[in-house]
């Protein structure tokens, strides 16, 4: 099986230092970058699938030029090669452009499955997988909690998580699958994997390599942030100690006051 995984470097949520720049765009220099959490789950799923079915995993990233540092970890986990699309014209790219560019780059690859994290910790729109599927004309199986390909029949089944459990959905391959945490925790890169990653290739593409008209010619994105503020501070709360029955009464009083019971 050939599996392509979309991975995005995002500011490390654990570092807690993400911030917006003066133009209200994400300041990507403000924190160390890591692979987006959900993408790691997608990558882990891909690695397990090729371990079971044979084949290779490649990662596709659209990011600033320093992305190889973050991509190395994905290679160290076991992806065979990486494709980086980077271009100064893509700084601050909006969602439609991101979708067009990723679809154009993915369209140059042969794959049975294209996996993407459900959403990113920095953008959180959750729209990219669907948009890429549309542009590639591929079926979309979303919110995957389990992935079961049938290479002989060229179909794939996915447990699509729902509010009440999951739906078992099936589509033809090649297919696009958006991946959730329920797929299982990503492996640590083994030290052997880290050393092996040194010799794995990351191909770099610019916009010119992908074709015309992917980004707006006038450099104006489809959306613009007009203003950004810190969220309003919460009023300080009250701390309650003491016997459980007293505490329970205080909670109930609080709820009654707020008309919650």
């Amino acid at each position, binding site marked *: 099986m050939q599996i392509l995984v979309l991975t995005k470097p995002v*500011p490390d*949520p*654990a570092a*807690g230092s993400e*911030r*917006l720049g003066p133009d209200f765009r994400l300041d990507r220099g403000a924190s160390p970058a890591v692979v987006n959490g959900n993408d790691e789950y997608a990558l882990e799923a891909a690695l397990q699938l090729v371990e079971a079915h044979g084949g290779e995993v490649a990662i596709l990233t659209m990011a600033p030029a320093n992305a190889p540092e973050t991509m190395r970890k994905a290679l160290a986990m076991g992806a065979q090669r990486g494709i980086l699309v980077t271009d100064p014209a893509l700084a601050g790219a*909006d*969602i439609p452009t991101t*979708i067009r560019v990723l679809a154009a780059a993915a369209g140059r690859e042969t794959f049975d499955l294209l996996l993407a994290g459900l*959403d990113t*910790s*920095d953008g*959180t*729109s*959750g*729209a990219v997988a*669907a*948009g*890429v*599927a*549309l542009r590639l004309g591929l*079926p*979309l199986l*979303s*919110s995957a*909690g389990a992935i079961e390909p049938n290479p002989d029949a060229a179909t794939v089944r996915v447990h699509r998580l*729902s*509010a009440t*459990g999951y*739906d*078992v*959905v*099936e*589509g*033809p391959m090649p297919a696009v699958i958006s991946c959730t*945490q*329920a797929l299982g925790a990503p492996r640590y890169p083994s030290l052997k994997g880290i050393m092996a990653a040194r010799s794995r290739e990351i191909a770099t593409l610019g916009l010119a390599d992908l074709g015309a008209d992917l980004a707006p010619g006038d450099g104006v*994105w*489809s*959306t*613009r*942030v007009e*203003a*950004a503020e*810190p*969220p309003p501070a919460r009023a300080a*709360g*009250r*701390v*309650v*100690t003491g016997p*459980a029955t007293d505490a*329970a009464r*205080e*909670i*109930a009083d*609080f709820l009654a006051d*707020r008309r*919650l*019971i």
Partner: protein
Amino acid sequence: MPATLLVVGEVADGTLTRLSAEMATLAESLAEAAGGRAIGLVVDAEPAAAATELAGFMASVEAVTAPQTSGESWAPYALAEVERAVDAGVTHVFAGVTAEGRDLAGLIVGRLGWGLLANAEAVTWSGTGPMVEATVLGGKAITRSVFTGESGVITVRTGSVEAEAAASPGTIEARDAVGTPSLPAVRVLERVAEAGAEASLEDARSVVVGGRGIGGPEGFGLVEELAGLLGGVVGATRASVDAGWIAYARQIGQTGKIVKPALYLGLGVSGAMQHRVGMQAADAIVAVNKDPDAPIAEIADLFVVGDLFEVGPALAAELRARHGG
């Protein structure tokens, strides 16, 4: 071009979702501010009931019968109808922040190249177009954003407005789906309900969350009991989910659901940033934890230092007593 705002309603268990009703109210008020109009769209195998509900909130609703959606993925069919509506003059499309809504938004952007403003917590009409307020970067900032062009897609979070019934029910135009989906079909083979299946976390008015302090799957019995007494829904932290005590569908946090309930009650929740991001916008936050230094104390309106296995049952008893037994 006059603003024409399309609300894509979602159907769950045969009825319209609360989020769809909220979006309807939102769109109508924006349309008024814009001097334009709003239209509702319900695409379903049997849209009549949900369309009637939606018409209780909007002047104009299209009920599209797409029988295939009972056995196939819904979003491509909804996309086809949205495209038709856009051809007929729709300028902005509103979808809910749900799995289906986000997929639909992505399909629309992929097809039309429109901009997307996601996770709207509030939308106002500013001069020439909608202005969307959203929380970004795990709660670090609230941004206000606009489209630079004349159209766009907005995904809307639960609780942006209170759904408001229209003065009189709107008109419903019923027809069959005409669009062919632009993607290969994804068939639904089976719908599996998992234990503890209940209403959506994002729609819930109250959420009672079990954290690491719950100690095991049995502890969630207490969480369920309190959720029941409060008319709410059970949620979980990542720690509980990773430990296998409860399904991922219940997880609230950065990699789970973001909720804005009227009441959040956390039991044995430490309040790691990961989780806080998912619930810190709740109106009222109450937490019970043995650890007086638990980070959740920083955002709780009421923080009880105590053993949840003592305070919890005591609270259940108290709630029963106040309810009159």
